[in-house]
Each structure stands twice: as C-alpha cells, then as structure tokens.
C-alpha cells in the first residue's frame, strides 16, 4: 500500500488541528477513492500531544524506519515541523506541511512542500488594503510569540510602505485571559483601526468581548485581523461579538466555487457534526490531492527526489481558489481574500468582498 504518516496534535490544547486535518484527508479519499496508481492508500495517524517537537520527531522517525511510509504529512505547529525537517532530509521523504505557518519552515529541508500558508503572506495584503481604504492610523496588538511578532513586523512594513502609520504596538502575554487593560489603552489612543493577531479560540473571543464591552466599536474603531482569529471553526462560538470584523485569509467556508461546494459536501459526509471545515482541513485536502497526483505520475513507485520535482511548480484549483507551489521555495502561492464577518441565516461567515491574487510569502 501507499503509506502516509500523518503527524499532528490530536490531544492537548491543539487537538482540533489534528481533527481538522484528519477530516480533510478523509474527505479527499471519500471523493477520489482510497487507491491511486493501483496502490491502496493507507494513512497512519500519530498524535504529537500538543506542542512537542521531540515526540513529533520520534514519531516521524518511527514512521520512516518502522512503517516505511512514502510521505510524511500534517504538522500543525511550526516547532514540530522544524524538528522533523532533519528526518525528511535524512530519509529523503517528501514532507507535506498542512499548517505550520512560519516563513522559515520550508527552508529547513529540500523535501518540504507547504500547502497551507505563510503568515506574512496573509498579513501584508491586509495592510495594503487598509491603507488603500483610508485606514492610516493603526494600533497593533499581537500575542507575544514568534507568529505574533512576525505578523506585527509584516503588517508594519506593508502599512508604512502604503503610507499609513502604526501609532502604537502591544504584545500580550500568551496565556493571559485578561485583555481589559490593553483594550483600555487602545481606547485611550483613539486609532482608526486595531490590527489583532492572537491564537484563535478563547484568546480571540476574550479580545472581541472586551472590545465590544468597552464600546470601542461604537467609538468608531475598526478591528482588522488575519483570518485565523475568525476561523470558521470558532466563528459561531464568537457570535455577534465578531460581526463586522474585517480579516484577510486564504480560505473561507463561504468561498463561492464548485470545488468548495464539493469539498464541504464530502467533509460533511466524513466528519458530520464535527463542526465546520476550516483552513487546515482544506490544506490537508489539497495536500492529499498533491500526493495523489505525485503517486499517479510516478505510477506508484515513490522516490523522494522525483516526488519533489513533481511537487515543485504544481498547480491546481483548490476549494480556496487557484493555488501553486513555488518551484524555488516549495512554498504555496495563492489568492488572499479580504472578508467581513456577517450573519447568514443564523450562522456567522467570513464573506469575501475583495481579493489579491497570486500572493507569495513576502518573508522570502
């Protein structure tokens, strides 16, 4: 059989990363059958138990030496991806990244190809869009960890290039539920908008609750952010506190295309009730698509270097829209959409109203 090792967190704080990816993969196989090039596809699931690089590395190593997988896939968190990079290189196994979003990831091994996104990739368009639409004085608030800091930098750069200015920046501690004082500061400095980057889930919710409670929206301050704060998966939980939020991202469940309809259809059938599909499910879905293409091109005989040759420059239409793999960086090139949170029939969606095509990771 064609073996794929799926390494991702299935328990602990990032448990739903694993769930999403697994469901995305199942959805693809549900649609396109579980054999390719005559080989039965077998997905071996491994739990990294949350941010735990050494376990991720161990699991990957065991998948390679014990189970002799043909592909390594998954990788919810950057450190886990980085830790595994060595293994991919040593074992010459293609490594399909389905989430880990720091720019550096793809540089750590020639066998890595990323089908999710790179943070700066979605941040920069937001800044230029803001400047273009008369939002010039922006306050940034990001979680105090690498992704937060990267996006802060990317946003500042793009905004100032576009003629706007960042009036003030705050970095908030990671595990801190209390946003009131920060929000008060924002209120005091009266910017036109505040750019937010915090982990999806209770942090995002807490921020928006505080934002509404203190009536910053009423005071005419906009919230702009990258899409992971209004992740389709948590959007309904945030409810009306999020409505009107403007975000930039590469995928929305509300994206209007036949591919997306088909994907959501399949997702519903394999993971019904498990909540809405989000960008990780899509990345996994596309990753599988790529694996199938490689497998059939090599008609079943997977060789690391050949596989990478095929992956480089691969192009197809994903549920999120057209995507491609940059031959030099093995990183994804895709359209980034500007969306607004709206209530459609009792549910909240990110409705796309503007887009920037063929965005590369400006970080490289």
């Amino acid at each position: 059989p064609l073996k794929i090792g799926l390494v991702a967190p299935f328990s602990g704080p990032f448990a739903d990363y694993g769930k999403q990816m697994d469901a995305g993969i199942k959805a693809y196989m549900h649609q396109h059958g579980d054999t390719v090039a005559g080989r039965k596809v077998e997905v071996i699931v491994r739990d990294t138990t949350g941010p735990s690089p050494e376990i991720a590395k161990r699991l990957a190593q065991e998948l390679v030496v014990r189970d002799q997988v043909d592909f390594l896939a998954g990788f919810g968190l950057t450190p886990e991806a980085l830790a595994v990079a060595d293994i991919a290189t040593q074992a010459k196994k293609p490594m399909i990244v389905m989430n880990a979003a720091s720019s550096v990831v793809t540089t750590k091994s020639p066998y890595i190809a990323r089908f999710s996104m790179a943070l700066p990739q979605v941040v920069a368009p937001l800044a230029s869009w803001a400047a273009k639409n008369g939002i010039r004085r922006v306050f940034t608030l990001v979680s105090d960890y690498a992704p937060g800091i990267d996006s802060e930098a990317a946003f500042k750069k793009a905004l100032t290039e576009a003629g706007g200015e960042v009036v003030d920046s705050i970095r908030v501690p990671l595990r801190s539920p209390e946003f009131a004082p920060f929000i008060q500061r924002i209120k005091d400095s009266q910017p036109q908008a505040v750019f937010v980057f915090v982990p999806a889930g209770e942090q995002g919710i807490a921020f928006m609750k505080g934002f509404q409670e203190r009536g910053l929206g009423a005071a005419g301050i906009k919230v702009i952010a990258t899409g992971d704060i209004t992740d389709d998966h948590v959007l309904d939980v945030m409810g009306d506190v999020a409505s009107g939020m403007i975000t930039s991202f590469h995928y929305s469940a509300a994206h209007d295309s036949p591919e997306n309809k088909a994907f959501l259809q399949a997702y519903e059938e394999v993971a019904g009730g498990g909540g809405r599909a989000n960008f990780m499910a899509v990345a996994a879905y596309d990753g599988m698509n790529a694996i199938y293409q490689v497998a059939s091109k090599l008609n079943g005989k997977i060789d690391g270097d050949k596989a990478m040759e095929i992956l480089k420059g691969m192009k197809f239409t994903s549920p999120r829209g057209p995507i491609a793999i940059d031959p030099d960086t093995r990183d994804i090139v895709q359209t980034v959409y500007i969306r607004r949170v709206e209530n459609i029939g009792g549910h909240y969606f990110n409705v796309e109203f503007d887009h920037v095509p063929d965005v590369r990771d400006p970080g490289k």
Partner: protein
Amino acid sequence: MAASVLGVLFDGVAYGSLLFLISVGLSVTMGLMNFVNLAHGAFAMAGGYLCVALMQRAGMPFLATLPLVFLAIALVGAALERTLYRRLYDASHLDQVLFSIGLTFMAVAAATYVWGPNQQPVRLPGFLRGQIHPGGVDLGAYRLFLIGLVAATTLALHLLMAKTRFGARVRASVDNRAAAAGLGIPVDRIFVLTFALGTGLAGVGGAVGIDVLGLDPTFPIKYMVYFLLVVAIGGAGSIKGPALAALLLGVFDVAGKYYVPEAGAFIIYGLMLTLLAFFPRGLYGRKA
C-alpha cells in the same frame, strides 16, 4: 488621568475577583482540607459545561443556572469523595497529586469526547453586558457582578470556617483525624460535606468564569497554575488569604499590563516570587 487610575484599579479588582472565584473551591479542598486536589479545574470545567448546557438546552437564564450548578457539582464531589478521595486522606501529598492529575486527564478526555475540543459559547443576559458610567468612570457590569459575588462568598465562607462550631470541627478533623474521631467528631461526615462545598464552589467558579476565560476541555490544565498561585500565595488554611492574594495579583497584573505592557507576564510572576520570599507560608499561612 484620575479616571483611568480608578478604572485600572476597578478592572484589577474585578480580575482578581475572577481569579478568586475560580480558585476558592481549591482553597477549601486543598487549603482547608489539605488535600492536594489538582482535579479542581475538572470540577470547575464540569460546572462550566453544565451551565452552558442548562442555558442552551433548557434555555435557563444565566443567573438561575448558578445555584443548580453548585448543587449538581457538589453532589458529584460528594460521590467522588465517598468512593475515591476518602481513601487518600492519609496518603502522601504526592500520591494525592498523582491521583488528582489522573482524574484531570480522564476529565479532559471525557470532555473532548462529549463536547469536542473547541470553545463553548455563553450569552450573558443583557444587563450583565456593556458598561455603566457613574461619575465618568467606566465600570463593566459583569465585573461589578463578579466583585459582589466575591465579597459575598468570602464573607460567608470566612464566617462559616472561623466562627461556627462546624468550622472548628472541620479544622480539628483536618489537623488530626484520629484525635478528632477519638473525641467524637464525625470526621467522615464533616469531610464529605466540606469537600462537596469545595467542589460546588469550583463548579460555580467555572460557570461564572466562562465569559472571560472561555471553556474547552483543556480548561483544567490551562488554568491550573492560576488556581495554585492564588491558594499558595494566600496561604493554606484560610479564606481571607487567597482572597487577598487574588486581588493583589489581579490589580498588579492589570496595572502592569496597562502602564508597562512591555513587562508582559513578568509582572505577575515577579510579584508572586517577592510575596513568597517575604511570606514563605503565604499571606495567611497556617503554621507548620
């Protein structure tokens, strides 16, 4: 900036109140009963989920759920005390740690199984959302509510434990179970009641906490540090201690974040270390 100073102070007190509410249950089970109950967060989480369920399924108003949550979780606690906890009172603290961590893991997995790994929504009633503005100061309605709740619970608990015969018997039983029993104090009954009280409070804490802390299966582990902080800094064996500790932590954390955001999380840990350097047994620690 007088207004903002007051505002910050208020927010700090409110945040402290929240910290206390989610920890008060533990200051009963661990502080008073001297059982290192790391599963406290699990009871809080249970309270949270129950609250959400009652609001969504049964469509109950938020406030009405709280007493029910208290009773239900207290019952759960009592049941667990009778079946499991009871056997570990004379076990070492480390065994208790291992046991209660085990329970926590089970609770986390169970919650994931039942409710899935993602956040739960709560809709507060209108009058608890938004702010009111007496004399130019912005006061969050929900925060006022928290402060009131804390004042009430602290006072009630303190009187119960320090002034009533029941309180004295609880302390006696904890100090020395054999001696207490030998003098006719029904230790088992006292313990099951106290434990139920502690877990019930934990449940309520979880319920009122959701709005700010959110609610997902990792709750018990995510906030374990906060519970421990409050109880340890406050000092085992008292209610005033943890209350004071929580307020201090809250005020300093908020003030720090407002005036020196760069300092980030260092403020709170720094404060805690200094406090413990001066009060190794906690603010109101019981003598060893």
